[in-house]
């Protein structure tokens, strides 16, 4: 048994007042969940504290919330771990924000320069010392999910957001012709492949964490697109190409994802929605759908090729190839290419203005530095290995994170060199 403080963002719509914070003291075994904590507060202190919940075992998908700022299921988050995370978070908040990568490092007052390169063991000791300075008992912060309107306390309106988006992707199988007398005979791997998407419990944690949706509320989003892959990857579905065309041509579709990995982190079931979006993109390309209005396909292809060839992003090439694929080296560019390049100008200017493309000189083709030594060969090797082992990235085949190292060792793949070595 241990004592915890839950700091809950509450909202009682009938009170006429805005949201407020309320703290509840609970007392339970650290191995129990944040949901168990909330239910104890509800049972003992205030029955009006509202949270959807049912199975308590991460299968019904009801209790999506934010714990310490991260979207997750309350039932799947151990309260002891949430408490530690809250302490770490409160410490982070009291230390200066991380510096920009380019900024030269200057030790803060009283901080030794060596502190930055301390060994892991030392780091823990250091954190403990800091912990004593005050953050020991930071409350566990619990809020409703993001990107959705709040109905009451931790209950959000999933219908107007999540479910509307799910319905957007025609979420049912569209086979052609009469069903066979027996089952459809399909590759066994194809069923395992889409089972990762089927593992989705529609909890909305990915939607809550989605940064693209924050910027573009119309983005179809990680959950609905993972659902879409469940049909696109299903050999029984006869409208694969139509689905892909639809999702690629929607300006809020598959190319609206910015590849930020938030949904993968948030998903409690290992569905890895972003991976499913990437698979949709790849399949769209395989089906020759390369004329989407976002230039998404060309952009992805260009980026992939550039990294394969040069190891780092050559921004000048990326813009050329995204807007006018194949233009490089052509003395007489096609009309379409000229149009594309012209259309790219506002993007180029915006990129320079915002610092995404750092200087004009960066935009002159052909001066992009190559990786030193044999590093480029290693990048190529990663490409080849990935291509050859695509299907093994499915969780139903490779298992959880802990097994990755073993899989690599078993297949004779060398562990990657550290960055310092590679640069030397």
């Amino acid at each position, binding site marked *: 048994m241990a004592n915890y403080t839950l700091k809950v963002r509450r909202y009682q719509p009938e009170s006429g007042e805005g949201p407020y914070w309320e703290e509840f003291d609970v007392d339970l075994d650290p*191995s129990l969940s944040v949901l168990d904590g909330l239910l104890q507060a509800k049972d003992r202190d205030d029955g*009006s504290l509202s949270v959807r919940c049912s*199975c308590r075992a*991460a299968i019904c998908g009801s209790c999506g919330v934010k714990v310490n700022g991260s979207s997750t299921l309350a039932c799947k988050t151990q309260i002891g771990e949430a408490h530690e995370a809250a302490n770490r978070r409160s410490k982070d908040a009291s230390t200066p924000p991380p510096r920009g990568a380019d900024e030269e490092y200057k030790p803060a007052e009283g901080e030794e320069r060596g502190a930055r390169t301390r060994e892991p063991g030392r780091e823990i000791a250091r954190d403990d010392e800091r912990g004593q300075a005050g953050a020991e008992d930071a409350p566990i912060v619990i809020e409703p999910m993001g990107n959705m309107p709040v109905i009451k306390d931790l209950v959000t309106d999933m219908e107007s957001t999540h479910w509307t988006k799910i319905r957007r992707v025609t*979420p049912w199988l569209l086979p052609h012709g009469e069903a066979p007398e027996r*089952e459809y005979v399909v590759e066994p791997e194809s*069923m395992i492949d889409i089972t990762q998407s089927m593992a989705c*419990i529609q909890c909305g944690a990915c939607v809550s964490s989605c940064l693209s949706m924050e910027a573009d509320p119309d983005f179809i989003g990680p959950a609905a697109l993972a659902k879409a892959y469940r049909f696109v990857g299903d050999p029984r579905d006869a409208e694969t190409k139509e689905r892909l065309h639809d999702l690629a041509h929607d300006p809020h579709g598959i190319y609206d994802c910015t590849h930020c990995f938030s949904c993968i982190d948030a998903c409690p079931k290992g569905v890895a929605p972003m991976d499913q979006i990437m698979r949709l993109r790849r399949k769209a390309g395989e089906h020759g759908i390369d004329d989407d209005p976002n230039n998404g396909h060309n952009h992805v292809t260009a980026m992939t090729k550039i990294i394969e060839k040069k190891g780092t992003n050559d921004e000048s090439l990326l813009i050329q190839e995204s807007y006018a694929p194949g233009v490089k080296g052509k003395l007489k560019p096609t009309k379409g290419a000229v149009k594309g390049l012209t259309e790219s100008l506002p993007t180029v200017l915006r990129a320079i203005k915002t610092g995404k493309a750092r200087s004009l000189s960066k935009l002159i083709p052909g001066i992009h530095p190559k990786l030193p030594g044999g590093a480029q060969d290693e990048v190529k090797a990663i490409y080849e290995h990935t291509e050859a082992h695509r299907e093994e990235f499915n969780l139903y085949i*490779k298992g959880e994170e802990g097994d990755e190292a073993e899989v690599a060792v078993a297949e004779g793949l060398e562990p990657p060199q550290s960055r310092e070595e590679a640069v030397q």
Partner: protein
Amino acid sequence: MPAHDVLVIGAGLAGQRAALAAAEQGVSVGIVSKVHPVRSHSNAAQGGINAALNPGDSWESHAFDTIKGSDYLGDQDAVEIMCREAPEEILHLEHLGVTFHRNEEGKLGTRAFGGASAARTYYVADITGQAIMHVLYEQLMKHSDSVARYEEWFCTALALDEAGECCGVVTRNIADGSMELFEAKSVILACGGNGQVWKPTTNALICTGDGIAMAYRAGAKLMDMEMIQYHPTTLAGKGFLITEGARGEGAHLLNAKGERFMERYAPNKMELASRDVVSRAEQTEINEGRGFPDGTVALDITVVPRKRVHEALREIVLVGRDFAGVDITREPIHIKPGNHYTMGGVKTDVDGRTDIPGLYAAGETACVSVHGGNRLGANSLLDTLIFGRRSGVDASARAKRIDRTRPSKAVLEAEQAQIDAISSREKGSGRRVSEIKLELGTTMDAKVAVFREEAGIQEALETVRRLKGEAESAYIDDKGSVFNQDILAAIELGYMLDNAECTCVAALERKESRGAQYRTDFPERNDEEWLKHIDLQLSDDGPEISFSEVTITQWEPQERTY
């Protein structure tokens, strides 16, 4: 007043299947659920669904296993229907898009399950219930024109007309607290079981026996209420389920001395004997001091190849990691028997009809009875689908046949008054609803569990009756209208207490040991006196007992060994 020809209460597998079947008949259908349909507890069915679909298998073999598993309390006509129609149902689901596991030829593949004489369990990894339910929900979205969904609406009572026929349901829209009287020609109860009456349980918090209690209050007969399944592999304390699929894949049960103790209880089927048999074996090991200090035995999945575990038992890997801190691919996990399934329920015929005209029941809410004294693993999904579909079809036929009668507003007013009364109780006027629920759960788990005896059941019954009195004055905190879960919990407590009372009365009455009912004071099965169902009907003094025959078609009761 919303009106439909067929109104389905509950949107798990039985409810969704019933609604889709009714829609196919061309009637107007509504489906009401207190949670969003995909939150329903059918999600939790991990292991699979049985059907004799392989060329070497037969429905008779499936039926015999089911009947033997039921300890001969299952009605054999109903079991025959279920097992005969199973293959077609599996193929139907496959055609709708369920991602069933395939064998190397790309055809449907099976796994072994408890109490079965052939590997006839079809599955999607260990998320079979979830995979099927999400596919049915896809179909509900597809057929939005013909099936109206009322998501997050709570039912408080059935409405009967003057002739005693069911003609509607009183509901509360959880979003805003408004009360609504739904009109229907046929009402199908598909509200799941009553696992929350016990603590711990593998069941979700929503499994509060709503359908069983509403039917009982309306005067319908309940049957086999003493038959409560304890699942052999649940996590101690938390009650989470570890699928029987783990044993189907070859996992062993070990006591603290490392012995594979099932050798002594079921030398032929070992870990894959019927659930009642395995649960009793485990509890005996624990009671006789051969368990671990935390009151458990161990499930050893490390004997199953790791690659296979990841492919077929991934959910269990997650449950072990997230809820027990154990990597099941590397070390055994501690488990014990835990409350899992309601074999009994609202007495129905093979078309889901109850004693009340117009009222149907399907799935765990119903007792057809195909499970009798003990349900076989992977037969519950099948039960929900077969009898869900049959209820939907018959309810539609009735709706086409009869004229609509309008339910009286009086029932709506009475329900509103009841809710107002609960809301108006002052804090401190009685006990908290949560306290009463906790006492109920721990009492039932202590006295009406794997092993039972007269004094214990009697004590439980007295406790339940005291708690019923206390519930009358229990108070709640939330007085609001929007998403008031407090008021729902108070109503659910009433449902649970009715369920508990019926279980205690039936368990006390059955003076023999059969299936899940093991009486230490009557340790033998007694076919002469007790090869019959106990039926319960509400009277002024609580549940009134009567008996009904068990239907036997071709399998005479035999001694039951595994």
